[in-house]
């Protein structure tokens, strides 16, 4: 998936150098991993400002606990888990303060609703894909967004951040993908790139 093993390996190498004393390696790590962490946080239903805070906190925690992470290969999973757990906590707090916001809002990315800004969608195939994804249930949208970022499947953390039982994640992902595939296959404007 999207060269995840490359991402994990690259992050591991930078982190190994960081742990070895080259503190400057943190900058390329931040630039490398932030897009993935962003989609994770947003996929957990956080507003932009909260997503930024959560990501910042995860990095601060990583630097504070760098010595405790024995396997550099685990650094992306560690950051991802931290982001998801913290995102879940913040999303829960927000819901408590605003009971009107049902758990369904977990699909997130409601501000601004990544609406039909078709201008930003490079290809027609992308706008077709977007069209069908936005008709999936919010839960499917959230899970596909997070799972598409892959990383080592960490179903426990994913389950926690999405509010889906661990055992259901694989099947739910399968169902969401199947629903998307069937919608796409009946759309004449869709052709797999």
């Amino acid at each position, binding site marked *: 998936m999207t060269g995840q093993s490359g991402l994990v390996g690259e992050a591991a190498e930078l982190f190994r150098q960081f742990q070895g004393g080259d503190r400057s390696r943190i900058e390329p790590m*931040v630039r490398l991993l932030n897009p993935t962490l962003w989609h994770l946080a*947003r996929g957990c239903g956080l507003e932009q400002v909260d997503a930024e805070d959560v990501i910042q906190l995860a990095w*601060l925690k990583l630097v504070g606990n760098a010595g405790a992470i024995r396997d550099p290969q685990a650094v992306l999973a560690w950051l991802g888990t931290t982001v998801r757990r913290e995102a879940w906590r913040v999303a829960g707090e927000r819901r408590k303060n605003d009971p009107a916001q049902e758990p369904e809002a977990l699909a997130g990315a409601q501000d601004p609703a990544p609406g039909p800004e078709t201008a930003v969608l490079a290809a027609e195939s992308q706008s077709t*894909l977007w069209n069908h994804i936005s008709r999936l249930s919010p839960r499917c949208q959230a899970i596909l967004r997070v799972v598409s970022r892959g990383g080592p499947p960490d179903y426990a953390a994913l389950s926690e951040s999405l509010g889906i039982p661990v055992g259901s994640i694989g099947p739910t992902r399968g169902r969401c*993908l199947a629903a998307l595939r069937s919608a796409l296959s009946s759309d004449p404007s869709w052709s797999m790139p």
Partner: protein
Amino acid sequence: MDALDAELLEGIAALYDAVDPPPSSLDGDVLFALSLEALDAEIATLTEEGMPALRSAETEATNTVTFTSSALQLMVRTSEEDDGSLRIDGWVTGGGIAVAVLAGTTALWSTSDAHGRLLWRAVARGPLRFLLRPADPGDRPIMTPVIEF
């Protein structure tokens, strides 16, 4: 998971990169937060707050705030510039101390004169904090909590 699923997931990842990309400021903000953390600064305490921090249109808002650390004390007083931005007058217990106003990721440095006086002009309103670099490089830097001005 077959090849088509994998391809589809790849397409989904690219799609979200297009519709909801990370803000361009994200990397800089994270790096700035990490660099502040790396300073291992002592956090000063807010010991005194004169005048409510709340602003209202009618009052000529002047806020005086005092921060105390183990070695230094910093008092700042804000007043309004003609354009609505802030003038910040500061006094710190000592001359030659570099003090920055941190607003977001920008740092506006000023160095105290022999009387400990500091001055910043035309500072945008918002959450601000101060970073003090003692004259002796062996001393720990000091950071204040964030205050909304």
